[in-house]
């Protein structure tokens, strides 16, 4: 049983009542069937073996009947196995670790800010305040072009960054899994803000000389939750393609999107977004089953774009000077909370144990019929999952989700530490968090992981994974050189 927070407000007895209730409801079938089987077995024993034999002999069956029943059984079994969705496994994944020359200490960031925005001290002040409270550490990285004063974000530099991060991640993945380029059947690359022609997926095909009949996709413009969208797409494709491998690359290319103006709402992403990438190998091949790390259980996508406020929440636009940047609206947190609620409503029935669902149902009925003033019951997702990977979108996002889902600091530790060490790497941050949990030795076989990502649109996407095998430390990955220093205490405000 996962650890639950000590509930000091209610007496200890209530806790045991709750535990007993959960056991009862979750294993209801067992509680129902065991007595019935026991009584039938008892009854049979009393009858004695001879009576059983004569009863069996008295059933007259001829050959046709036997054959028909056998065929019916075989037919039902075949239909069942054919219509079962193929299991999709995550064989392994890698995350990109930037070189030390790309590191961005706070003081360097502020200095550059002061030099570039020298006519706008208020904007500089704003950036400093954001950085102080951001939850980022001193070791996050920006691409080389941004280290220049002023930054040099031309297309060549953007392609250079893309090649650097994507190719490094893929090379590492090939090494880790022994995958050969010719064995890749599906290639999906998601990068929201940089979409050159030919696409980044074409760039990968070109570099690694992938097959000409590869199914390649390039998802752009879909925000920070595009990683899960890519996984969803890969899963759907792997239902149609038997015995296939899918390579999914999630990244965000920072170089062309570094805002160079002085509108405050648009300077925010500069403080938070950092360089990163992840490469995943998904497969439905039977032989990968034994060595795969995770099995994909559910993907739930929620799109709130039909609401105008949600649609305009993260909006790319030009500022009065004509410089392009991303405008984050002030009610981002509210919209995120609503999107999360939507997502949970769909996710809940899929993952929650029956006990929680019943409680939720009763409270819902109670509120509708008896007393609207009853507090809505927030299901305890800690019963459904051992680990949580919350997109490290910013400190506020993690705080909000921790509050809404009633998670303990240890549950959100992976997210907070990833934000501290790598910053907001957009769609790949979920994989850095996953790697943190593995590096800490906390991932065991059978553990269920919930990845939640938010993105422009406004979307809230979740993926549920089940750990397929024990993962032993030390884990080779972006945390391998620093995992022992973590977790660190992140102060509320860092004095700059």
């Amino acid at each position: 049983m996962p650890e639950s927070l000590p509930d000091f407000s209610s007496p200890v007895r209530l806790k045991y009542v709750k535990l007993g209730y959960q056991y009862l409801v979750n294993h209801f079938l067992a509680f129902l069937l065991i007595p019935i089987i026991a009584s039938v077995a008892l009854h049979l024993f009393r009858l004695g073996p001879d009576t059983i034999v004569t009863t069996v002999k008295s059933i007259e069956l001829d050959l046709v009947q036997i054959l028909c029943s056998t065929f019916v059984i075989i037919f039902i079994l075949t239909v069942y196995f054919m219509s079962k969705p193929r299991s999709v496994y995550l064989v392994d994944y890698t995350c990109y670790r930037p070189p030390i020359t790309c590191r961005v200490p706070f003081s360097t960031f502020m200095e550059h800010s002061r030099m570039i925005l020298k006519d706008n001290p208020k904007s500089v002040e704003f950036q400093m305040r954001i950085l102080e409270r951001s939850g980022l550490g001193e070791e996050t990285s920006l691409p080389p072009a941004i280290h220049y004063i002023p930054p040099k974000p031309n297309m060549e530099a953007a392609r250079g960054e893309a090649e650097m991060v994507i190719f490094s991640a893929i090379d590492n993945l090939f090494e880790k899994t022994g995958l050969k380029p010719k064995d890749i059947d599906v290639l999906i690359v998601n990068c929201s803000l940089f979409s050159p022609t030919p696409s980044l997926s074409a760039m990968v095909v070109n570099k690694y000389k992938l097959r000409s009949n590869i199914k390649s996709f390039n998802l752009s413009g879909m925000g920070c939750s595009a990683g899960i969208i890519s996984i969803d797409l890969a899963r759907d494709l792997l239902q149609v393609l038997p015995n296939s491998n899918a390579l999914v690359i999630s990244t965000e290319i920072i170089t062309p999107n570094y805002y160079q103006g002085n509108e405050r709402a648009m300077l925010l992403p500069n403080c938070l977004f950092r360089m990163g990438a992840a490469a995943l190998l998904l497969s439905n091949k039977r032989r990968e089953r034994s060595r795969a790390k995770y099995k994909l259980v559910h993907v739930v996508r929620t799109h709130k774009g039909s609401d105008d406020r949600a649609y305009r929440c993260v909006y790319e636009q030009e500022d009065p000077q004509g410089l392009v940047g991303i405008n984050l609206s002030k009610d981002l947190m509210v919209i995120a909370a609503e999107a999360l609620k939507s997502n949970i409503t769909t996710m809940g029935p899929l993952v929650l144990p029956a006990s929680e669902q019943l409680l939720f149902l009763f409270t819902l009925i109670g509120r509708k019929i008896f007393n609207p003033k009853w507090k809505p019951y927030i299901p305890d997702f800690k019963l459904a999952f051992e680990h949580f990977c919350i997109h490290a979108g910013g400190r506020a996002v993690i705080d909000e989700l921790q509050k809404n889902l009633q998670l303990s600091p240890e549950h959100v530790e992976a997210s907070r530490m990833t934000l501290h060490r790598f910053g907001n790497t957009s769609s790949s941050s979920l994989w850095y968090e996953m790697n943190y949990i593995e590096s800490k030795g906390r991932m065991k076989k059978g553990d269920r992981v919930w990845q939640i990502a938010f993105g422009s649109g406004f979307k809230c996407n979740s993926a549920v994974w089940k750990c397929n095998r024990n993962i032993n430390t030390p884990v080779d990955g972006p945390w391998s050189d620093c995992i022992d220093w973590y977790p660190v205490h992140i102060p509320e405000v860092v004095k700059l």
Partner: protein
Amino acid sequence: MTGSIQHQVNVHSRLTVVSSNPTEPMGQIYALTPTDHTMSSHTVHIIYYYRTRPFSNEGRYAMDLDNVRVSLSELLSKYPRMIGRLVRDENGNWEVKYNDAGVRMFKANVATTVDEWLRVADESDERNLTVWEDMPDGDPTSWSPFQIQVSEFVGGGLAIGISFSHMLADPTSGVLFYKSWTDAERGDPTGRHPPIFTLPPLNNRPPPTSTENTPITVKYLQKHSKQPPISSPKMATYTFKFSNTVIKKGLSKIADKCPEATPFDYLTAVFWMQVIKLKTLVADSLTHSISLCVDARKHFDVPIPMKFFGNALTFSQLCLENEAIARDNGLAELVQSVHRHVNGIKKEDIDSMIDWLESLAKGLSGVYPKGVQMYGPELTFVSLEHLIMNPKDDSNDEFQSLVYEAKFRNNEKPMHVSYRIGKAEGAGLIIVAPVPEGGLARTVTVTLPAEEAVKLCEDPVIMGMAPTMVLSGRGME
């Protein structure tokens, strides 16, 4: 001829190089010593010229991510003083805050080849190869006290110029840091001994001797800190390269009077004599004096003196009678006096200097005296003899200098190294430095008022020593 290449250095980029690991603990503030404060009006510029680039040219981020910058970033983690920023305390004194902000790097292209440059460029052209940026409006918050410029020449040559405020370090520190960088890039383990930034406090010393015997170092400071700032005529710089044989010959000539003379002693004497003749104002006076700037590291009470990063210079004055110089063997006399003087600087002199500055500061209610003109008001000679190491085995006679052992991965020695001191104005500055080939040969960089400098280049005695002119804007010589 010189005008045509003045516009040929194009500084096209500016960026910041950060250390590989964050400074721990972050944000600590260290006060600068009174010695540092006296040097604050000067800047140091050192340029290393290479014939070939030490890093590859391939790949989109060749310059950005290749090993040269990686090794620099790793080295900077050990020098938090270089990547910090200057701040003022409540008394207005300077301090360094270890805030991990990084050093500024500039990249430039030069439209000519490095050989052509060394032949034809002059001092004002060379200014373009390092950064001469003052603190903007006296506000040090975003100003990087250390700056590196990497200039690429046509045909593959490279110049790496480091410049820094003299308040934080002296030229020797710059040289040693640079050597650590090249060693690290080559893969040599230099990390065993980290640099030392602060000296142990001078608490258990014998009380200072009576005031009659004011040490020469203190006398120098007393004189110069009272002088008003000099408005000097325009200065010009020429660099003379003297070969091994010439120096050997010269030393043997005066060997009977002064057998242990170093090339510095000899060259100081030679140039002193000739400059006296040129300086119309003082040629007839009874005494002549020069300032000598000698490294003080060997007197420090630390385990590895050469690892000290900061200001470790002694300035002192040497006076001689006119008659002594005018005699027949005047040169040998001069050499001997210089040699005796240089070797006569004791630890107590340095300690007294620090004492005197501290007491001066106490008198001014805690405010350290402002920077004074340390180089230049009097003809100043700077010795870099301490940078010449004896070889480990005595198999050959060659002395290799720390300066020219600064080789990157491609094992190529610098072709030439230039030293410049900013705001060294007044009577002049002469720096005696090693040469790539090693041995007794020396490069002498002379900064004098323009007219005198030109006359010096035509001086028969100097020319009789067959110098090669480098970076002096002269044509085919």
